[in-house]
């Protein structure tokens, strides 16, 4: 009953504060715009900038595939959509503390664990749905415009799910940072530091299979036959980190003086 009420509250919050719309818009924008830019806008720009360029060279420069488009979309989701999403939902925990809106729910018996779980479930579901649908839109749109290069939609679907799982990791960081920083903007900045930092560490030490960033690497491969052991390692680390971050959030909230904001 308690978790159902909290889930309903988070859904209402997401709808009424336009958070879901922003999340879907931030992902779908690139899903639709990337193929259009590559097919229609980029050739026009190049032709106007370099009118004397030989047609053969121009065609070579403009050559792109469905796979390249999906990779471009996944890159944009990781780099740009996440930035928009992180700041648009940076207040889901921080704002509750700074505006003292947690006092009544806590005093009327809502547990911190349920509050954190409801936020993670609602926003986690939203980001993974957005990236998966975004990947499918991009797959079909790029396929129509540039011919279908992938044997099936499965690799794109998997890429969307893996990218979305990495974004759930971001939501878990955001909730924890919100409880830690108690202010939305610092929480968003700290989240992005860890979100981008995870991939950077994976790149520097070549340990993606032990980090959540392995999910992004596997997604971008768009392989017909994925490396299940690689995915399993990254996925296990991601799930473990999400559980650890959520538990730390509950501990932090329990030690926090909610009346001080």
């Amino acid at each position, binding site marked *: *009953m308690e978790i159902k009420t909290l889930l309903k509250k988070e859904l*209402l*919050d997401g709808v009424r504060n336009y958070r879901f719309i922003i999340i879907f818009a931030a992902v779908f924008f690139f899903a639709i715009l990337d193929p259009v830019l590559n097919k229609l806008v980029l050739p026009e720009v190049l032709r106007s900038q370099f009118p004397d360029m030989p047609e053969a060279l121009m065609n070579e420069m403009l050559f792109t595939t469905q796979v390249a488009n999906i990779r471009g979309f996944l890159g944009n989701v990781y780099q740009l959509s996440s930035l928009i999403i992180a700041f648009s939902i940076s207040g889901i925990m921080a704002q509750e503390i700074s505006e003292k809106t947690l006092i*009544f729910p*806590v*005093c009327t*018996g*809502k547990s*911190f664990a349920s509050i954190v779980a409801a936020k993670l479930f609602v926003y986690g579901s939203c980001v993974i749905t957005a990236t998966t649908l975004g990947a499918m839109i991009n797959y079909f749109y790029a396929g129509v415009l540039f011919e279908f290069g992938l044997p099936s939609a499965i690799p794109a679907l998997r890429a969307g799910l893996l990218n979305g799982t990495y974004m759930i990791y971001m939501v878990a960081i955001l909730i924890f940072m919100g409880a830690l920083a108690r202010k939305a903007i610092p929480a968003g900045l700290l989240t992005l530091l860890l979100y981008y930092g995870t991939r950077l560490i994976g790149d520097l030490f070549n340990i993606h299979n032990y980090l959540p960033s392995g999910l992004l690497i596997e997604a971008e491969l768009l392989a017909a036959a994925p490396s299940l052991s690689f995915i399993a390692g990254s996925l296990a680390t991601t799930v473990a980190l999400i559980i650890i971050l959520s538990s730390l959030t509950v501990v932090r909230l329990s030690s926090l003086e909610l*009346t001080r904001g």
Partner: protein
Amino acid sequence: MITAKGLSKSFGDFVALDDIDLQVESGEVYGFLGQNGAGKSTTMNILTGLSKPTRGSCIVNGFKLAKISNPGELQIGYLPESPSFYPWMTGKETLEFLGSRWSKGSLRKRVQEMLGWVSLTDSAKRRVGGYSRGMKQRLGMAVALFYDADLIFLDEPSSALDPEGRSDVLKLILDLKERGKTVFLSTHILSDAERVCDRVGIISRGKMIMEKPLATMISENVKSLYDVVIPGNEINDELINKIKALPGILNVETAGDTISVSVDLPEREGRRLLKFFAESELNVLSFCMRRATLEDIYLKEVAVDGD
């Protein structure tokens, strides 16, 4: 219902509460008085489990505060001084969200009942962000009393209300008292406290300077002063001198048709004074001992503490 011993709270070097002892019995309305910054809200936050004391122990509603992991475990009703709600929720949704421990059918009925009780039925479908401060205070009151808890904490419940709303809150507190509920009331409005409280605690600069049943507090502070009202044309210097000549009289002052007589020992001199006026041929309209108000006591105690 509440037992606090040696409650202390510091924020860095600043001592907000210093060794507070408190005892609130079941069914009592306890008035917690003090200036701004005296430590009332800090005490309230500790007693409701929202803040942890630096030192001291506390039992609230049968629960040791040190052992609870969530304030909800205390099963109390609480109205903070400035209640914060989700501005995007309607008043009805707020009560439904916070009252989710009730079953669906009972919840709907209870929500309607509480909205009606705090006069928010017409605004039930409006978003709380558009409510005035008084409306938020009334919604907060509905939340505090939603679960019909036995122990209710009210932090300045009438501070944002108009005189009618204030009167309603006082009636409600008296109603809660009749139903055997225990109310811990923090207020600046001393006349309100005097009207509803059984026991009063006065806090100043983080220290409890007085804690007694209200009746005892007032009887101990009875002023040694009698006001005698007679027609103004009967008051003259000869009469004043006669009163002054009586044994045990400290001072006599007149204002209009009232003669105020300060005495040494109120009971003994009171009888003597009454006899004097009864045997005189004066038209005595009234004869009464002036009663100390809670405000007199509060101002005296806080002033003494300030010195």
